[in-house]
């Protein structure tokens, strides 16, 4: 824990601070989104348990810092625009 400050009553005063924990390291398979095939339906965004697929001006974007590679996005994609690819060491 190093020099972290210990708050009275262990209160955590930094909302959303799990973002420091990059769960992308857990991934074995990486979802790769083919923007050409994507019809922007948003099901992958809706069903991601980790909230790491987000809408942007350039279509949906996968945040690989947090994606655990569960594969739900691939399975719910109606047009097979997402492919799970083995991460390379």
């Amino acid at each position: 824990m190093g020099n972290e400050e210990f708050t009275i009553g262990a209160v955590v005063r930094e909302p959303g601070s799990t973002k420091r924990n990059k769960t992308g390291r857990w991934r074995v398979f990486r979802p790769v989104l083919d923007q050409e095939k994507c019809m922007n339906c948003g099901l992958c965004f809706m069903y991601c348990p980790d909230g790491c697929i987000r809408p942007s001006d350039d279509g949906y974007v996968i945040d690989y810092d947090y994606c655990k590679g569960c594969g739900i996005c691939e399975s719910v994609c109606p047009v097979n625009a997402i492919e799970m690819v083995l991460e390379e060491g």
Partner: protein
Amino acid sequence: MGNKRRVPIPEEELMAPGHRACAGCGSALCARLCMKALGKDTVVVMPTGCIEVVTTPYPETAWEVPWIHVAFENAAAVASGIERALKALGKEDVTVAVLAGDGGTVDIGFQALSGMIERGHNIVYICYDNEAYMNTGVQRSGATPYFAATTTTPPGKIWKGEMRPKKDIPKIIAAHGAPYVATACVSHPQDLIKKVKKAKEVEGPAYVHVLCPCPPGWGHDSSETIEIAKLAVETGMWVLYEIENGEFRITYRPKERKPVKEYLKRQKRFQHLSEDDIEKIQRMVDEQWKELEGKE
């Protein structure tokens, strides 16, 4: 990007990534979706359970809203105190929500929940039901379904897994006279969000019970969470309905109910079942459908 067919769910994320839920966790998805429905002016009370543990390892938190964990069995009582304190402090526009697992709801937390409903607190109580004590490694709870294998209901010479049917908590809450009771499933996020929003708008206690597959506990691949949840609904193993001021309404009716076998065979926890056992579950599901349809 000419084709704008984005799903109409709120984009704001109030549960940050970086939490330690298993890959493909149905309950984490449930919590994330519920937060979208509840909005940022919400205090979340969470009893001990998977989502509590994985979202708040000091000094981190996944929560973007005020959040409190106290113990396993008292979330509804803690929420009762919060709701009244907000009233006393003149902050009545804040929503108080409980997000609790099935153990914290149907078993150890049931007394506090019953008290909360009976006293009429203006609280949204959401149960994310993964049908066993997943946080401690898959022990049976009162919400574990008939014949499911868990570490405390291992199929053997005597037992065929869990030997009692799933406790029907939504029905019990409805019997308290709660103004809003609904069931939902992570496979149907828009329905879930709609129901949680309704629960939030209702004056008084509202209860939403959400079925959430658990890849390690149910024994399926992390990518299959949504498919299996959908099968629960399509087979009638899990029925989506709501009870608004006593009015019962099925909110989703499969065009043709699939055989329960299609749901059961996809999960390790039901692998030990014989054709007879499956037939027995099919009959139970058929009867339940008849009963629920009769309520409409």
